[in-house]
């Protein structure tokens, strides 16, 4: 038997023709390129939604809104900004005080005078003190006045009727605001509540004087630790210093001194009480004595006093300052002359000094509706 050997050759399997660039290296390259394309090209815009042209501005608008919301909530939560009246009252500690002790002078008629017979207090400083105490929430019966001497004003130490020392919270004692006093440790002034000037008073019949230099060689009594003392020192007169102005006037009455020199508002009261005994002369000094309230180290209390003074100055319905001036200084004004027809010595400026608006969040009386 013949076995035919047939060799069947299968046709060669066609080699798969790989496209150019599809080996493993090419595939890695493709993947890298795809990643780069995804990162750095925009997606294809399938449907542009309405308003997409304003999109970057919108983003800026949202940013502005977010920043404003953050700022607003920060301010509201942490109460940034100037303090309110309640905050000032709490820092000053006013709500813990049952009475308000104030140091005032007690022997200056027209400014601050205590009647020895009835024990009542009267004068411009007293009226201003009642005005400030009323705004702080103290009734008239809760205000205690204590006499204070000129050199104790910087230490805020007054004395009561039994001569015991009493610390006071406010000093309203014809205290002029000066830079040296402000630098002292326990003195902090509010804004000024009266502008007056230095003048001189002599016994009746003294030749007219226009400056303190004319007293060179003569004796002049003035208050110790006062601004009038520094001016009188420079004039060359012989100075006699006393702690209380009534002592100066006792010396003048006995003719132990030739003149008394201090603020015109103080001297005016004595001239008003005894118009025939004294002559009140206006000095040619352009320096103003601004009287202020000293609060010691209590800054919040100073801001509260300034609120009262600001209100009295700017609120047209508040005329407490004008009433105090009219009650105390206007009756004295016509008598401040050596003879009828001679020039009048001015006592104090008849308008309240302009007060700056204190840094408070809101002022209780401000009503901005027309």
């Amino acid at each position: 038997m013949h076995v035919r050997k047939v060799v069947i050759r299968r046709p060669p399997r066609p080699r798969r023709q790989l496209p150019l660039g599809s080996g493993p290296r090419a595939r890695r390259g493709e993947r890298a390129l795809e990643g780069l394309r995804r990162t750095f090209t925009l997606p294809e815009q399938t449907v542009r939604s309405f308003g997409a042209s304003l999109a970057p501005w919108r983003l800026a608008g949202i940013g502005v809104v977010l920043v404003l919301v953050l700022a607003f909530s920060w301010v509201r939560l942490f109460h940034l900004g100037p303090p309110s009246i309640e905050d000032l009252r709490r820092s000053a500690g006013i709500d813990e005080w049952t009475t308000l002790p104030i140091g005032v002078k007690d022997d200056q008629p027209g400014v601050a005078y205590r009647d020895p017979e009835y024990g009542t207090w009267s004068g411009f400083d007293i009226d201003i003190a009642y005005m400030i105490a009323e705004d702080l929430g103290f009734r008239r019966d809760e205000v205690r006045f204590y006499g204070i001497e000129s050199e104790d004003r910087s230490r805020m130490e007054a004395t009561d009727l039994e001569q015991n020392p009493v610390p006071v919270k406010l000093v309203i004692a014809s205290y002029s605001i000066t830079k040296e006093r402000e630098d002292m440790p326990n003195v902090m002034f509010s804004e000024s509540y009266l502008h007056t000037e230095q003048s001189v008073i002599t016994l009746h019949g003294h030749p007219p004087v226009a400056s303190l230099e004319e007293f060179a060689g003569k004796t002049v009594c003035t208050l110790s630790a006062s601004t009038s003392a520094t001016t009188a020192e420079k004039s060359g007169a012989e100075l006699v210093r006393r702690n209380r102005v009534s002592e100066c006037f006792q010396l003048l009455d006995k003719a132990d001194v030739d003149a008394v020199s201090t603020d015109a508002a103080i001297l005016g009261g004595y001239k008003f009480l005894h118009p025939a005994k004294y002559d009140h002369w206006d000095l040619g000094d352009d320096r103003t004595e601004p009287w202020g309230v000293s609060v010691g180290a209590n800054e919040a209390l100073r801001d509260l006093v300034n609120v009262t003074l600001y209100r009295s100055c700017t609120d047209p319905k508040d005329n407490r300052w004008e009433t105090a001036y009219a009650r105390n200084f206007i009756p004295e004004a016509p008598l401040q002359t050596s003879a009828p027809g001679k020039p009048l010595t001015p006592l104090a400026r008849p308008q309240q000094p302009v007060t700056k608006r204190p840094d408070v969040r809101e002022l209780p009386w401000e009503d901005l509706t027309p």
Partner: protein
Amino acid sequence: MSVEVIDRRPRLRRAQLNWLLTALPAFPLVLLVLRLWYLSRQDLPTMLLLVQYVSPLGMISALIIALIGIIPAIVLVLRTLGGILLVSSPDPNEAARRSLLGLTALRMPDWVVVLAVGLAGFTWQMRMLPALLMLVVAILGLTAVQRFPGERRMLVVATLAVPIALGVVELIWVWPGIRVALSAGETSTALLLVVPPLLGWLLTGPVPPRAARLATHWPAVLATLAAPIVVGALFLRAPVLPNSAVEIDDGAGIRVVRGQLVTVDDTATTVLQRGGDVVFIPNAQVRSKTLCPEPVRAQHSRITVRGWAVDESALEWAAPTRPVTGEVDPRCLGRALEPTTTKGVGR
């Protein structure tokens, strides 16, 4: 060629929602307990005394009154930010899947938004109402863009004409208030009144897609993280017990005890003083009692817009309030009702 994507993320999202729904009611309860703890100055016996006498209804009403303005704020802000996110992304459903904010905005029913707007209109202060109008206008425009993307004329009206017209009318209406606020120095009120009408028309469309998540999702996340702290700070200061002053005469003179009145029973009056001490005053020593207004008055603005004070809400304006007199009871300031004059010293 479409690719089938098996997305497992919805289940994770549901798990997150479950945790959120658990934490949500626990938060007010924790607030109430913390309020008592804060009131008792972290002293356990004081807190036990307070728990005996403080009524839960009183505290819940204090909580509701303190928070009632915040709930519509949360709803409306989330709807607006989510709407901007949805409109800025090429596919709203994809955006909703990636972000809880987008999901909230997509699924929020319209009646919830209307209710929130109504509640906000009644309880927000007057100076926040321009901001409310801005949010309403933004939500309307965004909803129009999202649901009817093809109709150009309607979209022009809804996203440009209506917001600009409303902004102009609103500016004319509040203009006197802005002028007064600027002259009084209250820049925050002036900004609140002037910025929303100017920016309202701008927020009714998409932002660049790449920045969408940064501008909407992340601020919402940060606000959600800060919200419990802010709400807690607001609520912990709210009063729970009535603030009162009790005038007592204990033989050594008349003095006034100020604090919060806890309870009065047949033998003693219990007062929680400011420093956290509790005093039991025998009833024989009590001369008089009075209720005092809150010592910390909220920021009180004197600015009005056409007769409506800017820090009053519509509810306060419509509902009757106690007339505020200028007189403060002297007992609330720590002084006796009848001033006593002491003999001798100084006076």
